[in-house]
C-alpha cells in the first residue's frame, strides 16, 4: 500500500503543483490519477519514486517512509513507464529490458533470459529481441517500455501517460494488454492520464485532480460516473456518463428469448410455425453450427428457411457475449441492429438468444434500482470477467481485457 499523506509540492519558482494531497493506493490494483493538463499528476507520480522531492507531508510505502531507504534502491523497487517509452537507443530490445536486472547484479544470461520471457508476456515477438529501438513501431516501443519496467518484478508500477503518444487503435490494444498482464501479475499500479475514458477503463480506483494539485474526488469509476462529487468532476466526466456507466453493469441478468431463432436448414413448415409462435416480424437465421447469419424480413420469412439465400438477409450487427460484456455493449448492439434487437452469443460465438431494446431498457432500470444512485462496485463487469477467467483460463486472457473494452 502506498499512503500519500497531505503531500505538498512547491517548486522553487513558487508554483504549487500539488496541495495537501492525501490518497491511499491499495495493493494489487490499478489507481489512476486523472485531471486537466498541469494539475499536478506527473508531479504526484514522480514524488512517489522521488524523481521530485516533496516539500510537505509524507509518502509511506508499506508503512515505511520512502525516505527510509536509499533513493536508487527505492526506484529499483518500482517500475517506471513514461510517455514515449524512453528506450535506450544504443541498446537492443533485450538489453533495454535487462537493464534493471543487470543493475541488480544478475549475470547477463539470466537477465537476458528474463528479458525474453517478458517480451513474450507483453506480446512482443522473440524475433525483435536483437533489434534496436528505432526499428520498432511506437506501439512496440511502448510494450518494451512496460516490459523493461516489469523486468525486476517490482511490486509497484508507476506509469505516466504511457499510451498517449500512440494512435487510438494501438492505444486500445495496449490498454487491453495492460489489463491482461495485470490480471496475471496483480501489481500495484499508479497510472497517470489526462484521458477520462482511459481512467474509467483501466482504473480500479480513480483520483480526479483539479488544477492547483487538489483532489476533487477519489472513487471507483462506477461511483465516479454515478455520483460525481461536484460540478468540476461532472464537467470533466463529459455528457454521456450515464451511458458510460452501463459498462459496469453485467449483461448476465438480461432476459433473452430464443423464439425468433431458426437454423438455416429448417423446412418451410418450421419457419412458418416459428413465425407464428414468436409473433416477431423478424427471424434470426443461424448456420448449422448455431452461429448467426442474419435477420430475415417478414416477406422472406414466408418463403421458408431452405429457400432463403443469405444474400437477402439483413445484417445482424455485432453480437455481444452474454454475461461477459456489459449492458452498454448489449445496448450498443441493439441500437446498431437494423431490427432493433441485439444478438447474444456465447464464448464460441453461438447464439444463445436475442433481446429487444425494450428489454434492455428494463434491465438498465432494474440495475439502477438495485445498485442505487451511489452504486456499488461489487457486481461490476470486471468482477464478472474475473469469474469467467477462473472458469476458462484460455479465454480469460483475451476476455478479461475485453470485458472493459467498449
Amino acid at each position, binding site marked *: 500500500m502506498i499512503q500519500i499523506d497531505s503531500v505538498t509540492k512547491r517548486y522553487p519558482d513558487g508554483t504549487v503543483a500539488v496541495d495537501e494531497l492525501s490518497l491511499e493506493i491499495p495493493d494489487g490494483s490499478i489507481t489512476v490519477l486523472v485531471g486537466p493538463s498541469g494539475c499536478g499528476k506527473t508531479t504526484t507520480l514522480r514524488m512517489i519514486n522521488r524523481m521530485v522531492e516533496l516539500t510537505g507531508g509524507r509518502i509511506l510505502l508499506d508503512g515505511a517512509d520512502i525516505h527510509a531507504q536509499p533513493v536508487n534502491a527505492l526506484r529499483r523497487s518500482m517500475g517506471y513507464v*513514461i510517455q514515449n517509452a524512453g528506450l*535506450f*537507443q544504443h541498446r537492443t530490445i533485450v538489453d533495454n529490458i535487462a537493464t*534493471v536486472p543487470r*543493475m541488480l547484479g544478475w549475470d547477463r544470461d539470466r537477465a537476458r533470459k528474463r528479458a525474453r520471457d517478458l517480451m513474450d508476456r507483453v506480446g512482443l515477438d522473440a524475433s525483435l529481441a536483437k533489434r*534496436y529501438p*528505432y526499428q520498432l513501431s511506437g506501439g512496440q516501443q511502448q510494450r518494451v517500455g512496460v516490459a523493461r519496467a516489469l523486468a525486476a518484478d517490482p511490486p509497484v508500477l508507476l506509469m505516466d501517460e504511457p499510451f498517449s503518444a500512440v494512435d487510438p487503435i494501438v492505444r486500445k490494444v495496449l490498454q487491453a494488454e495492460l489489463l491482461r498482464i495485470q490480471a496475471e501479475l496483480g501489481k500495484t499500479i499508479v497510472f497517470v492520464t489526462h484521458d477520462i475514458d482511459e481512467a474509467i477503463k483501466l482504473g480500479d480506483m480513480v483520483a480526479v485532480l483539479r488544477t492547483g494539485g487538489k483532489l476533487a474526488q477519489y472513487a471507483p469509476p462506477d461511483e465516479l460516473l454515478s455520483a460525481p462529487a461536484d460540478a468540476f468532476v461532472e464537467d470533466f466526466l463529459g455528457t454521456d456518463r450515464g451511458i458510460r456507466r452501463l459498462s459496469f453493469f453485467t449483461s448476465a441478468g438480461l432476459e433473452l428469448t430464443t423464439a425468433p431463432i431458426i437454423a438455416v436448414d429448417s423446412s418451410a413448415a418450421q419457419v412458418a410455425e416459428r413465425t407464428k409462435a414468436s409473433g416477431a416480424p423478424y427471424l434470426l437465421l443461424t448456420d448449422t453450427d448455431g452461429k448467426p447469419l442474419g435477420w430475415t424480413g417478414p416477406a422472406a420469412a414466408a418463403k421458408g428457411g431452405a429457400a432463403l439465400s443469405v444474400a437477402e438477409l439483413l445484417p445482424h450487427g455485432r453480437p455481444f457475449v452474454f454475461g461477459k460484456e456489459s449492458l452498454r455493449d448489449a445496448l450498443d448492439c441493439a441500437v446498431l441492429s437494423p431490427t432493433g434487437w441485439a444478438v447474444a452469443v456465447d464464448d464460441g460465438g453461438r447464439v444463445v438468444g436475442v433481446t429487444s431494446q425494450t428489454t434492455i431498457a428494463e434491465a438498465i432500470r432494474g440495475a439502477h434500482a438495485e445498485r442505487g444512485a451511489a452504486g456499488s462496485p461489487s457486481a461490476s463487469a470486471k468482477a464478472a470477467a474475473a469469474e469467467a477467467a477462473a472458469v476458462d483460463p484460455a479465454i480469460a486472457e483475451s476476455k478479461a481485457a475485453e470485458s472493459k473494452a467498449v
Partner: protein
Amino acid sequence: MNVLNFINDFFSDSANWHGTTGIPHRLLEHVEYSLLALLISAVIGLPIGLFAGHAGRGGYALAAFSTAARALPSFGLLVLMTVWLGEIGTTPAMIPLVALAVAPILVTSYEAIRSVDPAPVDAARGMGMSSAAVLFQVEIPAALPLILSGLRSAAIQVVSTATIAAYIGLGGLGRYIIDGLAQHTYGKVVGGATLVAGLAIVTIGVFYLVERLAVSPGVRRGR
C-alpha cells in the same frame, strides 16, 4: 602546374625518405605532437564538458572560456611562450595547440550531452540508475557521435597547426615548411603541406573507424 611538379619532385627525392630529416621520421614526430596535444585537450575538455552537460549548468562559463581560448592567436602564443619559457622541449608548442583544441572539445561535448533525448534519461533515473551510471550508460553512448565530431575537428586543427612547432626548432612536418621558406626551396614547402593535408585525411579516416566501432548501431542508424 608547378605545384604538382613540386610535389612530384619532393616525394621522388630518395633523400627525403631517410634519417631524422626523412619523411617517416618527421611524420612520426608530427603525429606525436598532435596526439599529445589532443590527449591533453581531451583530458581537460572532455570531463568538464561532459559533466557540465550532465549537470546542465555552467553553459555560459564554458561558452565564455572557449571563446577566449579560440581568440588566443596560436602563433603569437607560441612566440610568447618561447620567450617566457625558453625553448625547453615541447611545452611552448603544446600550450597554443591545447588552447586551440580544447574549445571545440569542451563545447561539443557539453552540447552533445545537452542534446540527448530527455526521455531515456528520465527513464534511467526513474529505474534507479545512479547519476554516474546515467551519464556513462545512457547519455554518453547516445551523445557519442557528436562528442567524436568535436574531437575530430579539434584533431584536424591540431594536425594543421602543429606545423608551428618547427618555428621553435622542433621537428614535425612543419620543418619542411619552415626550412623550405628559409632556403627558398618551395618544393619542400609544398611537400610538407601535402603531407599535413594527407595526415588530416588519415585522421578523418581514423575517426570514421572509431565511430564505426564505438557507436552503437542503434544510435548511428537511429538519428
